[in-house]
């Protein structure tokens, strides 16, 4: 009998716990990508993650690394505190769009601007998932949510905030990229981006942030399959994918 080779398996970076995420929610994909990268770069054992408040608040149960659970929006401050004292460790925050772009705006801008050498995985699903589908800073114009039941009116609430664009206006070096995880090809690209981000940290270069366009079938009120289509047609159009900033000397 021939040997059995495994070309794909649940990464060692994830625990064997069934997540609480809704069926088809791509938070799960992003978790897996981070877990894979940490293992592939040999960083897992010296990594500490910082969980946000949001649907991924329980991320600490799913990653096979040490974890801190942050107050809403403040993960970058926790990461700063930790990383400054332990520059030898790998630190990442995992944050939703409400967490990072709304309540946590000051903390992420300042952490990025100070050039804190941690990595942020920013999950943009254009809505507040955990609290049941309220408007996020990233909610698209006209999109219906529980707190904009007649569709987001940009005359009253402004335009969606594009975080990587905003952060790339800062003068401090950083690695900033926007990716998506709604199709296999995008997932492959997303993994590369996440790997680059952690590599920046591993090499003690700079702050790195990957914005990941993600689905929230539950609060978008559609099936997982439809959600990937909606993301592709709408979210991706407003939030263009690509590398927005790269530290000097990084290919």
């Amino acid at each position, binding site marked *: 009998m021939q040997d059995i080779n495994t070309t794909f398996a649940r990464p060692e970076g994830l625990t064997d716990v069934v997540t609480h*995420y*809704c069926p088809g929610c791509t938070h799960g994909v992003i978790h897996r990508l981070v877990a894979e990268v940490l293992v592939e770069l040999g960083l897992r054992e010296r990594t500490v993650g910082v969980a946000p408040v949001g*649907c991924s608040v329980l991320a600490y149960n799913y990653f096979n690394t040490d974890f801190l659970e942050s107050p809403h929006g403040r993960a970058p401050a926790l990461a700063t505190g930790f990383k400054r004292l332990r520059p030898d460790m790998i630190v990442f925050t995992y944050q939703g769009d409400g967490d990072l772009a709304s309540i946590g705006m000051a903390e992420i801008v300042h952490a990025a601007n100070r050039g804190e050498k941690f990595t942020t995985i920013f999950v943009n699903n254009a809505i507040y998932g955990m609290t049941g589908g309220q408007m996020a800073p990233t909610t698209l114009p006209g999109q219906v949510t529980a707190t904009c039941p007649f569709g987001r009116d940009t005359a009253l609430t402004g335009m969606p905030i594009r975080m990587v664009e905003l952060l790339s206006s800062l003068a401090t070096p950083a690695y900033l990229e926007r990716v998506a995880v709604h199709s296999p090809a995008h997932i492959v690209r997303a993994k590369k981006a996440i790997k680059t981000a952690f590599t920046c940290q591993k090499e003690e270069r700079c702050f790195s942030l990957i914005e990941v366009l993600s689905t929230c079938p539950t609060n978008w009120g559609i099936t997982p399959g439809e959600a990937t289509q909606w993301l592709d047609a709408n979210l991706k159009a407003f939030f263009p994918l690509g590398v927005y900033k790269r530290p000097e000397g990084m290919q």
Partner: protein
Amino acid sequence: MNQFEVTMAGFGGQGIMLAGQLLSYTGLKDGKNVVWIPSYGPEMRGGTAYCTVVISDIRIGSPIINTPTCACVFNRPSFDKFAPRVKPGGLLIVNSSLINVSTDRKDLTEIQVPATQIAIDAGNGRATNIVVLGAFVGATGVVKYDTLISVVEEKLGKKKELFEINRRVLDMGYKIGRERAAQRSHA
């Protein structure tokens, strides 16, 4: 009756909350004191959901009921959780389409209703909750059935087609509930 408590439990999406609310509206319309309280705890996402309705002739004290007079369980985890909690002498309504066990408690009335099957057969699997609601009222008479019908019409009457299904399965549930309870009390 002084006070009657019923817990409805199942997966999120089985219409548990709505069933409880319809019952509450009915109680109110019947001139009773009512409280409806949902579970909104850690079970919320992807687990079991439940709500409790208290219907009373007197002022309702605690809305938190650990041992209700009745439990309507829509799936297996809910059966496991709530069947043991029903007050002695109480009632357990079981959605037998999804639950293939029955309690070994001898101190309560158990009524098995193939609610999901009935709903699917009637053309709308999501009407499981209405079947159970009918069965509950049939078995207990805790609110007037006429009032219930009027509430269901009021709240769900907008989509004609769906309403007709609901109306039909409500009756079916009601009949099963009434018959089984009668059997029991004669047994």
